[in-house]
C-alpha cells in the first residue's frame, strides 16, 4: 500500500494526491484524445457519454454531495437546450452567448425550484422536482414561439468564433473540453468550503446548521450550480440530438440520470462518469445484443436438428425485439444495483483496489454499511 508522506502544504492543496495519480489522469486524457482514431465508429456514442457525464456531474453535486435527490433534472436539461437554441438561432447571437444564456437561465430555474425546496426534505423534495419537471414539459409543449411546440425544432451544427464544429470528431473534442472543464471546476468546488458545507448538509442538516452552515444559502447554491451545469449540458445535447422535441425531456430521462448516479456510485465524481458510460453505452450494447443473441443462443439447439434450432431462434428473436424490453432492463439493473451494490460501480472499484492493496488482510466488514432501524423522515 502506498502512503504519501506530506512535507509541505502545497501537497495538501494540490488537485491530485501525488505524481503517480496525476500521471494516470494524464494517461487517461491522452487515451480519450486518441479514441476517435481507434474506434471511429463510436465517436458519436462517446460524445454522448461526455454530455451524459456532464449531466451526471450535475446530479452528483445535488444528489450525491448535497443529499437533495431530484427527479426533475431532465427539465433543466431541456431548459438549457431550448434556451441555447432560441438564443443562437432565433436571436442570431453567437454560440458562446447561447451557452451562457442556457447556463444562466437553467441556474435561475434551479433557484426557483430550490427556494421552495428549502422547506422540504427527503422524498417530498423528490416529488416536488418531479412535479416541476412535468409542468416544464407541458410548457415546452405549449410555448410555440420559443420551443416550436409539439412540432419540435431543428438544431443547426455548432459554429464557435467562425470555426465550424459540424464534424463528429470536432464535436467530440468540444464535448471533451467542456466535460474536462466541468470536472475540474466541480472537483475544486467540492474541495472548497462550499463543497464541505454541501457534504455536511447531506450528512446531517441539523449538525451542519449548528456548525454555522446557512442551509438556505447552500442548498439554493447547490441547486443553482447543478442546474447551471445541466444547462451547459443541454446546449451540447441540443447539438448532439439535432432535433428538439418536448417528449425527449420526459420523466424517463430524469430517471435515467438518477440511474446514472446510482449505478456509478453516489458521492463520487468518478461515479458520475462511470454511470454516464454505463447509461449511454447500454442502449448501444442492447441493440447489438439484440442482433447477436438469438443466433448465438440458438446455436446449441441445432444439435437436436435444424427445426429445433430455428424454433428457438424465432422465439428468442421475437423476445428480444419486444419494444418494452429496454426500460425493463434499465429497471432491472437499477434494482440489482440497489440490492447488491449500493455504492455503485465506483464502490466496487474501491473495494477491489483496497482488496489488492491490503492483499491478505482485506476484511469485508471494511465497507459494511450501518443500518438504522428508526429512520423516521417524519421527524426531521
Amino acid at each position, binding site marked *: 500500500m502506498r502512503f504519501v508522506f506530506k512535507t509541505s502544504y502545497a501537497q495538501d492543496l494540490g488537485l491530485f494526491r501525488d505524481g503517480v495519480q496525476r500521471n494516470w489522469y494524464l494517461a487517461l486524457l491522452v487515451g480519450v484524445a486518441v479514441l476517435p482514431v481507434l474506434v471511429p465508429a463510436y465517436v458519436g456514442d462517446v460524445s454522448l457519454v461526455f454530455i451524459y457525464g456532464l449531466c451526471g456531474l450535475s446530479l452528483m453535486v445535488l444528489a450525491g454531495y448535497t443529499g437533495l435527490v431530484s427527479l426533475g433534472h431532465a427539465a433543466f436539461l431541456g431548459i438549457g437546450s431550448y434556451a441555447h437554441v432560441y438564443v443562437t438561432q432565433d436571436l442570431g447571437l453567437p454560440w458562446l452567448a447561447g451557452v451562457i444564456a442556457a447556463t444562466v437561465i437553467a441556474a435561475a430555474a434551479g433557484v426557483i425550484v430550490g427556494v421552495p425546496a428549502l422547506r422540504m426534505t427527503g422524498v417530498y423534495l423528490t416529488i416536488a422536482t418531479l412535479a416541476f419537471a412535468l409542468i416544464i414539459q407541458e410548457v415546452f409543449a405549449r410555448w410555440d414561439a420559443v420551443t416550436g411546440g409539439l412540432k419540435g425544432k431543428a438544431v443547426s451544427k455548432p459554429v464557435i468564433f467562425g470555426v465550424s464544429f459540424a464534424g463528429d470528431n470536432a464535436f467530440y473534442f468540444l464535448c471533451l473540453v467542456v466535460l474536462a472543464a466541468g470536472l475540474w471546476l466541480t472537483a475544486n468546488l467540492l474541495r472548497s468550503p462550499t463543497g464541505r458545507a454541501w457534504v455536511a448538509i447531506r450528512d446531517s442538516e441539523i449538525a451542519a446548521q449548528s456548525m454555522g452552515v446557512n442551509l438556505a444559502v447552500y442548498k439554493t447554491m447547490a441547486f443553482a450550480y447543478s442546474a447551471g451545469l445541466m444547462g451547459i449540458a443541454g446546449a451540447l445535447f441540443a447539438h448532439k440530438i439535432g432535433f428538439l422535441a418536448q417528449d425527449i425531456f420526459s420523466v424517463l430521462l430524469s430517471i435515467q440520470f438518477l440511474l446514472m448516479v446510482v449505478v456509478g456510485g453516489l458521492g463520487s465524481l468518478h461515479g458520475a462518469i462511470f454511470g454516464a458510460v454505463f447509461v449511454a453505452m447500454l442502449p448501444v450494447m442492447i441493440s447489438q445484443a439484440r442482433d447477436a443473441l438469438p443466433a448465438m443462443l440458438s446455436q446449441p439447439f441445432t444439435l437436436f436438428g435444424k427445426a429445433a434450432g430455428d424454433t428457438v431462434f424465432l422465439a428468442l428473436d421475437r423476445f428480444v425485439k419486444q419494444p418494452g424490453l429496454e426500460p425493463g432492463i434499465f429497471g432491472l439493473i437499477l434494482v440489482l444495483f440497489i440490492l447488491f451494490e449500493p455504492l455503485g460501480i465506483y464502490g466496487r472499484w474501491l473495494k477491489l483496489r483496497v482488496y489488492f492493496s491490503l492483499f491478505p488482510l482485506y476484511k469485508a466488514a471494511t465497507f459494511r454499511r450501518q443500518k438504522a*432501524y428508526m429512520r423516521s423522515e417524519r421527524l426531521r
Partner: protein
Amino acid sequence: MGCIYGLVALGFVLIYKATELVNFAQGDLLMLGAFVCYMFVIWYGVGYWAAFALAIAIVALFGAALDASVLRRVIGQPQFAVVMLTIGLGAIFRAFASMTWGSEIYTLPTPFSAKATRVGGVTISHEYVSIIVGTVILCAVLYAFFTYTRVGVAMQAASQNQLAAYYMGIPVKRMFSLIWAISAGVAAIAGVLLAPVSLIDINLGFIGLKAFAAAVLGGFGSIPGSLVGGITIGLIELFAGAYLPHGFKDVAAYVVLLAVLAIRPQGMFGTVGRKKV
C-alpha cells in the same frame, strides 16, 4: 376520477404509514391489477366479480412476495434507495406487462357498463357510481382496521420504531409483508374500478404521479386526508379543464402539488414533528 386518485393515494399512504417507504411503483401495481382482471374476464371467460376477486388476490400476493423477496433487503437503508428501487420495479412491471399483454389498448366490459341512473335531472353512469361506492367502503374498512384492530395498531407501532416494535413482540417483517399485500390489493381495486372509465394500457400507471399530488395534498400518512386530497385534485382538474386555457388541465395537479409543498408541506391533515438529535 378524484376517487381513483384518492384510492391510489390511499395505497401510497398505507405503505408510508406502516413502513415509511414511498412506493413509486404504486401506479404500476394498479396497471397490473387492471390487466390481470382483464385477462381473466376476456381470455378465460371468468365472471366479472370472480375476476375482480382473483385480481385483488393475485396482486396482493404479488405485493407480499415483492416485500419478502426484494424490499425487505433495503430496510434500514436511506429512503432514497427505496425510491430508486421502486422506480426500477415500476419499469420492470411495465416491461413485463407490455410483453405479456402487448402494448394495445383494451376495454373491460363490466356489469355497470352503459347503464345510468337519473337522480333529479342529473344522469350518473353506473361506472362512476361503482368507483365512488367502492372507495367509500374501502376507506371505511381500512380506517377501522388501523384504528380498532390489534394488527392495525401493531402496524402503526412498527412504522414509528421498528426496533422498539420488534422488542414488544410485534412480528415486524410479517407486518410489512401484510401491509404491502393490502396496499397492492388497494391498487388492484383501483385499477379494476378505473378500467371501464379509462382504457387499459401499459401507461395506466402514470396516474400514480397525479395520485402523489393527492397524497401530498391530504398530508402523507393520513388515510382520510388521501381521499379528500384525491377528490380535491379531481375537482381541480375538472375545473381547470373547464375554465382555464387548454393545457392547464394536465398540469393543474402538479401546480397544486408544488404550491402545497411550498406553503404547507405537511398537507391538510398531516402532522410534523422535529427530529431529536
